[in-house]
C-alpha cells in the first residue's frame, strides 16, 4: 500500500522552481501534491501526480535529476489530533519518519504523505490502528 513520489533536484536560485513547475505544466502533468525541502544551495521538489512513470520520464528527458520513491498516503480525518494519532502509531511501531506533507483531493479526500524508513512495517501498524493507506489508483 504505497504511492509513487517523484523528487526533483532544484538549485536554490531565483526562477529555478518556476522553471521546473512550468516544465511540469507544459508536459500536461497534473500535480496533486507537492512539497519542497530546501537548503542554502539546493532544494528537493517532491510531487505526487497521476502518471508518475510518464512524468518521471519527461523530467529526466528534460535534463532534470529525479528519483522515484514509494511513500505512504494515510487517510486523515478533518478533526483535531488526527495527525498526532497517526504519528503516535508510527512511533510506537519504531518507524522513522523522514518527512511528511499534506494531500487533498475532491475525489479521494485528505491524506498525509509519509516518507518512512520501512513502508511495510508502517502500513501494517497503521492498518492495525484502523488507519487507511492508499494505493496510487485510490488517489486519482
Amino acid at each position, binding site marked *: 500500500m504505497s504511492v509513487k513520489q517523484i523528487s526533483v533536484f532544484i538549485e536554490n536560485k531565483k526562477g529555478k522552481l518556476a522553471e521546473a513547475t512550468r516544465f511540469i505544466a507544459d508536459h500536461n502533468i497534473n500535480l496533486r501534491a507537492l512539497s519542497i525541502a530546501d*537548503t542554502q544551495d539546493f532544494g528537493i521538489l517532491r510531487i505526487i501526480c497521476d502518471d508518475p512513470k510518464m512524468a518521471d520520464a519527461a523530467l529526466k528527458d528534460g535534463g532534470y535529476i529525479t*528519483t522515484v520513491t514509494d511513500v505512504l498516503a494515510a487517510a486523515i480525518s478533518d478533526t483535531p489530533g488526527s495527525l498526532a494519532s497517526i504519528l503516535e502509531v508510527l512511533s510506537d511501531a519504531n518507524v522513522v519518519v523522514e518527512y511528511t506533507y499534506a494531500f487533498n483531493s475532491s475525489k479521494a479526500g485528505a491524506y498525509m504523505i509519509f516518507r518512512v524508513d520501512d513502508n511495510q512495517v508502517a502500513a501494517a501498524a497503521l492498518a492495525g490502528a484502523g488507519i487507511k493507506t492508499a494505493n496510487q489508483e485510490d488517489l486519482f
Partner: protein
Amino acid sequence: MSKYYQPEIETASVEELRAIQNEKLVKQVKHVYENVEYYRNLMDEKGVKPEDIKSVDDLHKLPFLTKADLRDAYPYGLLGTDLKNCVRIQSTSGTTGRRVVAFYTQADVDLWEECCARAIVAVGGTNEDVCQVAYGYGLFTGGPGLNGGSHKVGCLTLPMSSGNTERQIQFMRDLHSTIICCTPSYAAYIGETLKEMGLTPDDIDLKAGIFGAEPWTEEMRRDIEKSLGIKAYDIYGLTETSGPGVSFECEEQTGMHINEDHFLAEIIDPETGEVLPEGSKGELVFTSLDKEAFPLLRYRTRDICVLSRKKCSCGRTLIKMTKPMGRSDDMLIIRGVNVFPSQIETVLLKEGYSANYLIEVDRANNTDTLDVSVELTPDQFSDTVKDLAAKEKALANAIKTMLGINPKVHLVAPKTITRSEGKAVRVIDKRKLHD
C-alpha cells in the same frame, strides 16, 4: 648591530656579485653533471657539457627543470649528494606526484637560515628582538626557515607554529614579542582576534612582521600594519629552492631583494623559454648556486614577475623582484597551500562525481575562501536533504584530506556549470591581487 646581516654580500658591487656567481655557477654545474644523472641526461640531450658554462652569460645554454621533472625524479632522482650527507627534508603539502620533497645537507640548512637571517635583519631585527614564529612547523618550510634565521640573528625565538591565536597573543604580551613571522592571512586574523579581545596595538610590542607563502595585496599590508601597529614586510621562497628567504623586503617595501649569491634569477618568456632583459615581465627561473643536496638548475617557478636592479635606498645591491603577479600554470595558492585544480578533480572522480566542477577562490576578512561546485549525477540523488547534506560533507572532507584546507561544497544541477567550447570553466579566482 649592522643594518645588514652579511654586508659584504648584500651591499657588494654588481661586479663583485657577478664574480661570486660566475665562480659558484661553474662549480655547481660540474657538481650537478657529475652527481645528478637525471640532469646529466638533460644536458647530454641538449649537447651541453659542464665546460661550456664558463660564466653566468652561458646560463641560457642549460636545460630547464620543471615541476614535471621533479615528479619524474621523485623522490631521489635529483639528489646531488649521498643520502648519508643529508640531514633534513622539507616538503610541500601536495599529494604524491605533486608533492615536492627537498633534501638538505647541514650546509644547505645553514645557507637557507642565513637567507632568512638577512630578511630578519632587513626589517630591523637584532639579538635584542623577540621573534615569534607563527608559521606552521613540520614539513612546511615556513616555520623551520624563519626559526633558523631567528637563531642566526640571535633573537629570542618563540617557536609558536600557527593556530591557537589567543595563546599567540598571550605570549606576545607576556614575552614582549617585537617581530612576528607568519602568513599574511594569519597576521590579519591575529589582528582581528586582538581587537575581539578588546586590545589595541598599544597593548603589544610588535614592530615588524615578515609575511609570505601566499599572495597578498597592498591593501592587506595596510590593514595588517594598522591592526597590529607594525611595518609589514614580504618574503618569498619555494620548497624547491630551499624555502622562504630566497628574496625578502627591506625598509623601502618596494619589492624583494633576491639572495642572488645563492639563487641566480632569470626572467623568461613562459611560451618560448627565451631569456628576457631586465625589467621585462615574465616567468621567474632560479638556479641554486651552492646547494649540495637538492641543486636545481634553471628551475621554472611558474611565478610571473619583474626583476629590477634600480638603486635601493636601503643600500642593498641585490637585485629586486616584484611580488608575483600571477602564474604561468594553473596553480592556486590558497591559505598558503599550493593547489592544482587537477587535485580537486581527482577527488571528485574518486568520489563518483563528474568532472564538471567550478572552483571559486575569494577572500573574506583577509582569509582565502575555497568553494567547489560540482554537478550532481542522477545516481547520487536522493529524496532527502539529510542524504544530500551528508554527501556534501563527505566530499568536503575528502577534499580537506587531499589539500589540507576546508572547502565549501555545493551540489548543483547537471549542465549548470558554464562551459566554454564544451569544456567546463574550472577556476574563478576573485581575489583582487593587483591593486
